[in-house]
């Protein structure tokens, strides 16, 4: 860009790549007053729409300040680029027609969406119950193969991770409580604490949360992907119910697998606690077992286990429901998989709290 006597020669390439530099150059130009401003394009090598837009913005800027702008020397191709721009160029800024939503409106929109989601979930649960009735009426229709396959993937394959994490949590619990109990010389009560805490709360809840992250999400992703590939629609056009084919086996599998995993988790948690108690509080395995039999009754174990089928139903139904909510794109699969985990864990904790209140009212 060179200037003499308010003639501006455009040189080189006026393209997107050069845009930043050109913008800076143009901003630094201040034409002398009372003379027409001439823009000359004869030395221009290349011009694209970004360059043309930049140049016509520049011209407009000075025109609005009372300068006369003249164009000269632009080749025919370059003029074509300008005419393309001019076609769509705004003469003045239109007043913005939309306003951003205020907080109250956003809150309203979210509430309505949430209510619709809740309604959809409830009707989904309704369909599940209806299809379960179908299975009960005709037990031969139960998809045992699919169920056992799902038990394999959700149960058997989760054994290692559940066992390891439960063992470690047992260790941590015993350590934290052991520090306190040692101060009072009440070492033996670590057994009472571990027994009640693990059997009633930690075993069921930790396992449920692990499975919500592991299985709930995979249910959502599996069904979501099947929706994208139209496999769900294919099942429908074959005259079958997608809920019956895809959801019931998964729910049944988790109903069977989760309690077993919880029991495993409780055993491993207690073993972890037992080992920590021995190392830290010098409580022998023998004493531990002896005290355990005395301090913990079957009721504690059962109270913990009662909650588990509810967790299983929640995890499986939320996961599969979110799978069916997937629409149109792979991004949607990811989104609903995330939602299934978040909602799953949320519902597990809320339900657990509800059970605690219920049990305390019942005096259990």
């Amino acid at each position, binding site marked *: 860009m060179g200037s003499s006597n308010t003639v501006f020669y455009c040189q080189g390439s006026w393209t997107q790549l050069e845009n930043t530099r050109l913008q800076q150059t143009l901003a630094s130009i201040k034409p002398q007053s009372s003379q027409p401003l001439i823009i000359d394009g004869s030395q221009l090598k290349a011009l694209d729409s970004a360059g043309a837009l930049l140049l016509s913005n520049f011209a407009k800027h000075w025109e609005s300040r009372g300068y006369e702008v003249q164009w000269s020397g632009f080749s025919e191709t370059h003029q074509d680029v300008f005419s393309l721009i001019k076609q769509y160029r705004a003469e003045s800024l239109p007043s*913005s*027609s*939309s306003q951003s939503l205020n907080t109250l409106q956003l809150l309203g929109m979210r509430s309505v969406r949430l209510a619709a989601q809740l309604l959809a979930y409830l009707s989904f649960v309704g369909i599940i119950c209806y299809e379960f009735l179908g299975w009960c009426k005709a037990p031969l229709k139960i998809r045992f193969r699919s169920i056992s396959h799902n038990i394999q993937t959700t149960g058997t394959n989760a054994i290692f991770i559940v066992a390891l994490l439960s063992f470690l949590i047992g260790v941590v619990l015993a350590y934290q409580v052991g520090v306190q109990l040692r101060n009072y010389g009440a070492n033996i009560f670590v057994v009472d604490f571990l027994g009640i805490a693990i059997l009633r709360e930690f075993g069921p809840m930790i396992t449920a949360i692990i499975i919500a992250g592991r299985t709930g999400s995979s249910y959502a992703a599996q069904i979501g992907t099947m929706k994208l*590939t*139209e496999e769900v629609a*294919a099942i429908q056009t074959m005259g*079958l119910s997608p809920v019956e084919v895809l959801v019931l086996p998964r729910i049944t599998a988790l109903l069977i697998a989760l309690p077993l995993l919880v029991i495993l988790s409780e055993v491993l948690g207690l073993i972890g606690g037992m080992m920590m108690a021995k190392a830290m509080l010098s409580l022998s395995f023998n004493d531990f077992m002896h005290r355990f039999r005395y301090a913990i009754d079957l009721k504690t174990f059962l109270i913990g286990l009662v909650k588990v089928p509810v967790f299983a139903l929640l995890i499986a139904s939320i996961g599969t429901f979110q799978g069916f909510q997937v629409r149109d794109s792979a991004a949607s699969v990811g989104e609903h998989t995330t939602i299934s985990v978040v909602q799953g864990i949320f519902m597990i904790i809320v339900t657990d709290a509800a059970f605690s209140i219920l049990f305390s009212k019942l005096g259990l």
Partner: protein
Amino acid sequence: MSQSLIRVENLSFAHGGHQVLDNVSLNIEQGKITAIMGPSGTGKTTLLRLLTGQLKPNQGNIYFAEQCINRLSRKELYKIRRKIGMLFQNGALFTHLTVFENVAFPLREHTQLSESLIRDIVLLKLEAVGLRGARNLYPSELSGGMARRAALARAIALDPLLILYDEPFTGQDPILMGVLVKLIQELNEVLQSTTVIVSHDVPETASIADQIYILAGGKVVGAGHPSHLMQDPNPHVQQFMHGLADGVVPFHYPAPELRADLLSAPGEVND
């Protein structure tokens, strides 16, 4: 004139405030190949979903063999769907099952046939589409064309009265396109079924269809035998049948003026 298998009467369907189908009436004759054609996004696939009862119309009725599809109970609808085979755009094979198991799936679900009989039927169907040798492959190991043919074998597993094809020719190489055209025609004759093709590939579809309906903007703008439609004076039909870039069907999706779009601040929603 032969008997009609499907009658669609004054069908309207709106989705999200957008009128997808507007007062559409069709007549699909038994044993014939009927094509529903039109530019992308004119509600052809929606119409197919309505035919199988996956969607419910806002107005109008669909009769399948004199039964009103949109008023059937769930159970009756599922029963009718067993008489319908559908080929999806991307095959929609079950990815966790082999080709053989995919084709056997509807048989296992809806019949009490013995395992050896199922095997015979599946092999026959796979033979018909030329994939008998690929029966132990998984869908992920198939090419696009093979997947579509395998899905076709699954769609005809139960010898359906009606076979629906959703864009069967899209994205196929010329050889495979020829194969599919021939297959569709043969299956229609051999199974004595009725065929409905939804497509926008004019030459392929026109070569086998007995009757074509052209949809544009949610309305039927032309109907008749392919040769007859080629000479139809309606500008929509002309533009579509002859593949003209611009005409009554606009190039642009409805949008605010470009300048308004360009000048609105980023992040704002203009609607």
